[in-house]
């Protein structure tokens, strides 16, 4: 980084050294507030979390070191295993549907229109608090007087209890979150599509490629870096779902939507099992590290493309 090497050829060596030291001082001063914030609210808590997870602590009595007891408790806790299962179920429902829908919407938009108004409308749900989105859909999906069930009954399809049955609750949560995030995801993909030069398509066309061939052989490979980014961020986000569950089902019915983040919240802030809750959060962390490693592999695989 050569602020002065190109800028100040006439400067003498002493002046240069002077500038360097000013640069270092100002640089450190400029990052100091962020460094303090980082150390206090990111670094120390992350390390402290490890210690808390090794203790038994209800906040009222002093923490007691219990070694790995929380982790062995976790292995025998059916609710934990259920939460793990339910979280993976959610991710598996959410990600494929959301990604494919977003891809379709993005391709459609790039063919039809660049209208800023349409893009603004599509992004709207993503800008809303998930608490609002959760409440709104709770109302829309209400079994007795919600408009969706009114419509289903009018069509002769009967009543769907959406959030009130263990079997339909999680798909309903996934549906709500797909509604909230699909537009945002589509716009990310749309931006990726805009970056593909039209000449690539022209060349493919001259070679006699069909529409389908162009999509699979040109669009998708060139879009891979964007798709990887989209997948990685939405997978990491999905594993941490909390708001929608907390507002609509509170983990029920019968733990059907008790995702990891909600179980951790419940253990920590309604039962005050700080140690146990932290131990579960560490497991979630490990899962995300694993997911991130897979992502890094994919990213590297994507490097050659563009």
């Amino acid at each position, binding site marked *: *980084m050569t602020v002065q090497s190109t800028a100040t050829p006439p400067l003498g060596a002493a002046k240069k050294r002077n500038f360097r030291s000013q640069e270092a001082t100002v640089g450190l001063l400029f*990052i100091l*507030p962020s460094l303090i914030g980082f150390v206090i609210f990111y670094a120390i808590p992350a390390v402290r979390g490890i210690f808390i997870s090794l203790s038994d602590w209800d*906040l009222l009595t002093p923490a007691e070191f219990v070694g790995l007891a929380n982790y062995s408790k976790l292995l025998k806790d059916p609710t934990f295993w259920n939460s793990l299962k339910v979280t993976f179920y959610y991710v598996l429902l959410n990600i494929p549907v959301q990604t494919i829908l977003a891809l379709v919407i993005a391709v459609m938009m790039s063919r039809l229109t660049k209208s800023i108004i349409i893009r603004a409308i599509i992004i709207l749900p993503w800008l809303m608090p998930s608490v609002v989105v959760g409440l709104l859909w709770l109302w829309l999906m209400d079994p007795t007087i919600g408009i969706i069930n009114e419509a289903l009954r009018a069509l002769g399809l009967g009543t769907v209890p959406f959030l009130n049955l263990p079997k339909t609750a999680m798909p309903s949560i996934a549906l709500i979150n797909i509604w909230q995030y699909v537009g945002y995801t589509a716009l990310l993909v749309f931006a990726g599509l805009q970056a593909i030069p*039209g000449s690539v398509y022209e060349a493919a066309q001259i070679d006699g490629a069909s529409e389908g061939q162009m999509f699979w052989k040109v669009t998708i490979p060139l879009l891979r870096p964007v798709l990887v980014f989209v997948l990685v961020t939405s997978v990491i986000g999905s594993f941490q779902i909390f708001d929608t569950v907390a507002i609509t089902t509170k983990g029920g019915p019968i733990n059907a939507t008790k995702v990891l983040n909600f179980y951790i919240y419940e253990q920590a802030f309604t039962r005050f099992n700080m140690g146990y809750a932290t131990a579960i*959060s560490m497991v979630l*962390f490990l899962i995300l*590290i694993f997911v991130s490693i897979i992502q890094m592999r994919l990213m590297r695989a994507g490097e050659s493309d563009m």
Partner: protein
Amino acid sequence: MTAQAPTVHVPRRAFPWGKLAAWIALGILLVVTLFPFYWMLRTALTFPTSIYKDTSSLLPVDATLINFKRVLGMLPVQQLVELGGTGQSINFFLALRNSIIVSVLMVIGQVAFCAMAAYAFARLRFPFRNQIFAIYIAAMMVPGIVMTIPNFIFIRNLGWIDTFQGIVAPAFLMTPFAIFFLRQFFLGVNREVEEAALIDGASIPTVFFKVVLPMTIPAVTTLGVIVFIGSWNNYMWPLIVANKETVRVLTVALGVFRSQTPQGAPDWSGLMAATTLSIIPTFILFLFAGRKILDSIQFSGFK
């Protein structure tokens, strides 16, 4: 227009069925996106006790503004009970004020401190610069809940439970995203202007505050809007650290309101009036900064 569909050579009279189908699909998408918002408004304008009447009417039933009045605490308790509420008015006005305080504080702190840090990471040479930046970026991958519990304990030890500083503190000095976001913009600033100012004898802070910052106002504003909306929408952290009514923010207040079920079912018309009010600031911001937010989405997708 770079990603436009290549012109396919079809006979001229063939009707573009594919295109028509795509437009219809796009139309359906827009309806699916907008209808819930319309329904929110429709319900908010429906008279409280008429909520069970004419449940599939597309227009508000017995249209009224009374729901907005009652969630803003403008009606006497007795009338609230008559309307089927708990009589316990949810003081939405207070929650609205609290959310504004929290979000404004967050914007001021985060934007100021992250702009300085981002500039340092983009332009200045100092020891361990790249290592520190790499650690910040790596922290983006750590799930929030891992820090949430220790942070709660820390805030509690400080005696900051149920205070505004308790809500704001963890993200006031930095978030990795904000630094990352602004650094990208500072990297794109034309270096020659900065160099010219330096040759004229300006100090580095002067160059940053007087030259670079004025040039990047749009980017900084965009970050401000994103931080405001993010803070406005935040739920889990304020739920954990600030449940007292005097500091309770909108999202938390909405959660409390949802749990009050006076007659076995939530007070839907009141809830929808409250949610409608709570998203108005976002709508207004989006009206003014919509294009910038849309551009920044494109931007955040790449590196």
